[in-house]
């Protein structure tokens, strides 16, 4: 069964989410991945929205992180203070992030391209990204794999990854034992080396070559001896995605 890269990314992301854990989701792909996980293997995955919705039963994909779908038949509809506080207290395991730029340590830029005073491109800024990247136990980054996005040095460090390497997060006062967990792109799944905290290739998506990944990465990637191939979406996953979770194709696009 054919699928598009967005569908594959949604499936890979959803498989990372363990049951009976909690996840901060934004709109779009993260939301789709979280609902897919709930339908398939993580019925007790607790979905948390930064604007105050906790544990909703979303009827349709929300358009905004604060819209009424984010607390539809929820366990609790509360405040950003409440949600960010429980995240700071360690209750939120996973967080999804996107970015315009990423560096080898998983630090992210969503603020500016070019100088801050007079940017070439002004992006939205942190939003909740810095909070998610600071407070969740493990963040999962979803972004396009392009050379101009995977850079050695960010134009602006909006959201902390591993900063300058091992121990750096703890040294600046961020919560212990937290940090980026996976980077999922249209080409591959990447993780971070235990020792150096630098980005490491984990699996190539079907049909993607190692060269293609390296060409699209602007820094030196750690390549382990064994690189597996990403499991393609199952029929069940695709059926749910297209038939139930995002039938209008708002996020995953129209069938490829």
């Amino acid at each position, binding site marked *: 069964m054919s699928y598009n890269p967005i569908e594959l990314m949604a499936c890979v992301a959803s498989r990372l989410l363990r049951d009976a854990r909690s996840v901060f989701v934004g*709109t*779009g792909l993260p939301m789709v991945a979280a609902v897919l996980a709930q339908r398939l293997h993580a019925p007790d995955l607790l979905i948390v929205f*930064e*604007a*105050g*919705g906790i544990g909703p039963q979303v*009827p*349709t994909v929300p*358009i*905004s*992180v*604060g*819209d*009424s779908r*984010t*607390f539809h038949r929820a366990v609790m*509809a*509360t*405040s*950003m*203070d409440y949600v*960010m506080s429980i*995240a*700071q207290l360690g209750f939120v395991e996973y967080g999804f992030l996107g970015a315009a730029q990423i560096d080898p340590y998983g630090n992210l830029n969503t*603020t500016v391209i070019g100088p*801050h005073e*007079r*940017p*070439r*491109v*002004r*992006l*939205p*800024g*942190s*939003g*909740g*990204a*810095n*909070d998610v990247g*600071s*407070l969740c136990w493990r963040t999962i980054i979803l972004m396009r794999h392009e050379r101009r996005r995977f850079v050695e040095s*960010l134009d*602006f*460090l*909006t*959201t*902390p990854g591993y*900063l300058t390497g091992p121990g*750096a*997060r*703890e*040294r*600046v*006062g*961020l*919560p212990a034992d937290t940090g980026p967990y996976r980077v999922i792109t249209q080409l591959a799944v990447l993780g971070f080396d235990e020792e150096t905290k630098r980005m490491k290739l984990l699996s190539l998506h079907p049909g993607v070559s190692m060269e293609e990944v390296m060409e699209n990465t602007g820094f030196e990637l750690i390549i382990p001896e064994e690189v597996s191939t990403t499991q393609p979406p199952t029929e069940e996953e695709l059926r749910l995605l297209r038939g139930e979770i995002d039938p*209008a194709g*708002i*996020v995953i696009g129209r069938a490829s």
Partner: protein
Amino acid sequence: MLYEGEGELLGWMDPDEARRWMARKPLELIDKRMPLSEAITRFARDGDYFALGGFGHVRVSMAAIYEMIRQRRRRMAIAAKTAVHDVDVLIASGVVDRVDCAYAFGHELRGLSPAGRRAVEGGRVRVVAEISNAGFQWRFKAAAMGLPWLPTRVMLGTDTLRRSSARVVEDPFTGRPICLIPACYPDFAVIHVHRCDKYGNAQIDGITIEDVELARAAKRLIITTEEIIPGEEIRRHPDRTAIPYFLVDAVCEVRYGCHPGNMPGLYYFDEEHIAEWLRMSRTDEGVEEYLDRYVYSVEGFEEYIQLIGGKEKMEYLRRLEMLQAELRAP
């Protein structure tokens, strides 16, 4: 002190000064109803630093924003907590020239804001400080608590911190660095609510986002409301009061007041209208055309609602909200 952010510190007051300000707020149960145009004239001034309740396109008082544009406010600074359509039209219309930024220049899933980006990239508008969403609401929380700042564990180690007005100190309990986020008292705020009485006691359905805090932090507070209800109703369910009357300076009844945004339980996003703005705001001429059509040439918000499709459109958006209609995504 270990570190001091370089961002401009807007809205901070010494807590003693803040106390003096708040102590002057009148505590009488007086009828504060007035037309929105009067509230904006009286409480929203050129040069002010202000914040809007709600989040993104959700429960934001668009009526107040259009009124500020109509009254041609200038040189204002906005607390862009999670600002989308609001900051976009305020920048495009020349009302706002400084942005205190957690999130702006984007329309969430819908993409970036052409008008807002153009203004920043062209130098017409300055981003004076960066912060995170949690950080911004904790700035209001600090103010709401009468404190100079609140500690937090976000922002540390990043350029967001560097461009913020926060400071880092060594925590005397843990010995590790901790980030202190300064209180924020906007000159005024506008919060759109589901219902309130004529004194300003307000109820909000669903998530309150950061409005319970912002209401206390604002030096002047305008409430726009879908509906005005008797004070009796408020007193029947005092645990539903999100904003008590003594924080409030003006009460303005504006039905559909957050169109084209989502008012939880009442109406969903008007994606057609948002798309129209995003399309028109690609050029300065389009912006002028949009503002002429929907803001300058109308008397007030009721007329605007007629223009965007009137009762029929709002009924569709109500059915959309109640999951009784299909989203016509443009």
